[in-house]
């Protein structure tokens, strides 16, 4: 027994020696900047954490990545992109940061992980960028005060939010149907309702069958009232799930506002008059798309490029023409409604922002080089912007009359390749917008459409972390709104609906969260 025991003890001691012997690789000591005299432009190794929709293509090797080489040559930054996984990105980033493996540059998607970045700001993971923003003046113009407010903590700015996206959505109408039925272009919401009912009852396509409607929609998990949002603008309603905004120093939920009630009543009337396609609640995107192509509806909320031919590989415009050469979709002018004349609503301030971590500042000059690059990347006047946006001339795009026409198929296709990774620097607001910019003319048209109509601007929303009660709350709102619109729930029970949502579905807690956030931004007292 004793012999065995000492044997075991000896074994254990040997084992512990061996673990202690595993040598640690010595960390290379970084050169102290103070010692080097006026050094030649140094190359900094930078890792960038990026949320990207381009995960179907690998980040290329440096030898094939001309953009990376360009950036290194011009700014001294050797950027290694670390794509965030589509699932579990937050957990991974947290683990990396807690484990000491910080990336230098983080691209944040605010509608995904907002709470996280607040914490990073407060815990010193990110560095303040005020001095650099002052130095690189272009950055000051990418956001308005409200947009910058989200990047601030304790008066210091910790990130750069990319420019607000265009809201390329609009209401469109079949002009040929209007002409066929000898109707005027509607200018108020009442006139629109009349036209919608006419489209449903007066056989505007002249085929003798009652197969047309005013509107249709398709269910989308993110929309409050699917695909009918632009119609809400003249009513003063701002779309969005538990969207809350400030009015008269009060925080109001869009879903329960008095404007929403009026809008829903209007929709209810349309449903009663059968002006809306009865499948609107269960339609998938494909059904909705088919409905437009086959001429089933006369009014639609759409992004402009779906109805335009030069939107590249987007074939909807073409398909519509093929199905019916006479089909003529035009943008509806802004409609006058109870809240005023609006054709659209102002887009959210941002959904993507760039942050530099304290690792990005571990060598002198590194953070500055990164900011310099960013300022150029966001500025459409620079060569950097062009390379990031469009690629290589004559390889990825052609210049026709001084305008860029991209040769790439849809940006999300594998053939468009890894170029997509670099577009995120200069995306105006939401990366998806980029999908549509096949050419400068398309881009200009989008801007024209977006600016064509006065926009409802209630943008004083706060960005709050998703409350755990939010999914049920949103689901309940969506369900009830649908019931009200369909008429299965009478408008008289609106107040009861509001109260149930605020109490049973914990809307009050979500509201309190918004109020606290608004107070932090100084938007309410």
């Amino acid at each position: 027994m004793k012999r065995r025991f000492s044997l075991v003890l000896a074994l254990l001691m040997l084992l512990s020696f061996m673990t202690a012997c595993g040598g640690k690789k010595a960390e290379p000591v970084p050169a102290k900047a103070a010692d080097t005299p006026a050094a030649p432009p140094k190359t900094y190794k930078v890792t960038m954490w990026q949320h990207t929709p381009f995960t179907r293509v690998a980040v290329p090797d440096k030898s094939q990545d001309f953009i990376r080489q360009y950036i290194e040559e011009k700014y001294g930054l050797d950027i290694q992109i670390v794509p965030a996984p589509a699932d579990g990105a937050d957990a991974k980033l947290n683990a990396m940061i807690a484990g000491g493996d910080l990336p230098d540059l983080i691209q944040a998607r605010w509608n995904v992980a907002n709470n996280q970045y607040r914490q990073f700001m407060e815990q010193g993971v990110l560095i303040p960028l005020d001095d650099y923003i002052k130095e690189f003046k272009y950055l000051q113009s990418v956001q308005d005060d409200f947009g910058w407010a989200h990047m601030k903590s304790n008066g210091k700015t910790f990130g750069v939010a990319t420019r607000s996206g265009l809201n390329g959505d609009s209401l469109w109408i079949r002009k040929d149907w209007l002409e066929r039925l000898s109707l005027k272009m509607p200018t108020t919401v009442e006139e629109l309702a009349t036209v919608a009912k006419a489209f449903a009852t007066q056989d505007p396509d002249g085929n003798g069958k009652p197969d047309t409607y005013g509107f249709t929609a398709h269910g989308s998990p993110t929309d409050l009232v699917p695909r009918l949002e632009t119609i809400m603008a003249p009513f003063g309603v701002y779309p969005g799930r538990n969207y809350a905004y400030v009015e008269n120093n009060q925080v109001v939920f869009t879903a329960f506002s008095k404007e929403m009630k009026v809008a829903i009543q209007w929709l209810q009337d349309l449903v009663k008059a059968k002006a809306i396609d009865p499948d609107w609640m269960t339609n998938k995107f494909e059904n909705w798309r088919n409905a437009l192509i086959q001429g089933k509806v006369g009014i639609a909320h759409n992004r402009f490029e779906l109805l335009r031919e030069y939107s590249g590989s987007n074939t909807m415009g073409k398909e519509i023409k093929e199905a019916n050469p006479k089909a003529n979709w035009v943008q509806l002018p802004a409609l006058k409604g109870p809240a005023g004349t609006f054709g659209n609503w102002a887009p959210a301030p941002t959904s993507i922002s760039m942050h530099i971590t304290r690792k990005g500042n571990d060598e002198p000059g590194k953070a500055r080089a990164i900011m310099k690059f960013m300022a150029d990347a966001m500025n459409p006047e620079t060569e950097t912007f062009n390379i990031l946006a469009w690629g290589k001339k004559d390889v990825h795009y052609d210049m026709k009359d001084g305008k860029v026409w991209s040769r790439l198929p849809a940006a999300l296709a594998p053939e468009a390749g890894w170029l997509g990774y670099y577009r995120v620097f200069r995306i105006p607001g939401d990366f998806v917008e980029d999908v549509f910019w096949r050419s400068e003319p398309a881009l200009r048209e989008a801007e024209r459409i977006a600016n064509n109509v006065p926009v409802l601007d209630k943008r004083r929303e706060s960005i709050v972390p998703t409350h755990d009660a939010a999914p049920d709350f949103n689901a309940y709102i969506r369900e009830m709104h649908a019931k009200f619109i369909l008429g299965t729930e009478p408008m008289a029970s609106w107040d009861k609906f509001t109260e149930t949502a605020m109490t049973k579905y914990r809307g009050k807690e979500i509201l309190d969260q918004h109020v606290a956030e608004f107070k932090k931004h100084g938007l309410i007292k």
Partner: protein
Amino acid sequence: MIQSRGEKIFGVVNIIFLTLLSVATLFPVMYIVSVSLTPLEALARHGGFRIIPAEVTLDAYRFLLNTPLIPRAFLNSVIITVLGTTANLLLTTLLAYPLSKKLLPGRTPVLGAVLFTMLFGGGLVPTYILIKNLGLIDSYWSAILPGAISTYNLLVMKSFFENMPEDIMEAARIDGAGEMRILWQIVLPLSKPVIATLGLFYAVAHWNGFFDAMMFINDVKLQPLQVVLRNVLMDAMRAEDFVTDQVVLLPGETIKMAAIVVAMAPMLAVYPWIQKHFTKGVLLGSIKG
């Protein structure tokens, strides 16, 4: 054998019950395969539900296989599964065999330590730090080494070895065989059931492995199939949310189903071959003599 009436009735009811159960199990698989083969327009028209598809198209599969990453990811998964399972079986055997000898000095503390790991783990951040400091980030081994020995499987194997008759090993020892030789040439050939069973458990776990690879492998070219498929699907779903011109190229539902079939198929193909060892294997830890 003459069956009593009760037994006959039971037989009939049993057959009906099991048939229904099999259908209920097979039905989702059939649905998945069918949707993956249906062209998009047919789905939209019929509201997405066809058991036997009227028209068949390979578009969804073509889309997946054209994504350059997916064949590469498939290869990565195969490599990780093969390497991983080999490592697993090797290490598990080498630990289970000595622990099965009741006279091993220090057996109880070692077993205690092993059981401890079954109940408590380090957590995500310490694991991340560990993997990082071992230099395993962006390496296949980060998906293999941390979980190389599954405690549960280890205990199954240990039980199995304990139940093997000592006589053969005694005889071999008398004949002058060393312990390693006994292990490799006598014990293991007799352990085919348990090795096949545990090998299958490990292989399936590796094939389905998502979390480790997602966390520790950044280079998309090295990521296994499940991670890449998840990324592709999330992109497709996200793109659908926003109205895009991609919709013609991204038939969402059918692609999701095709991805599921692609992920399932290899394991389904391997199962029947191991089947004959499998049914014997799981029980072996429990039956004495």
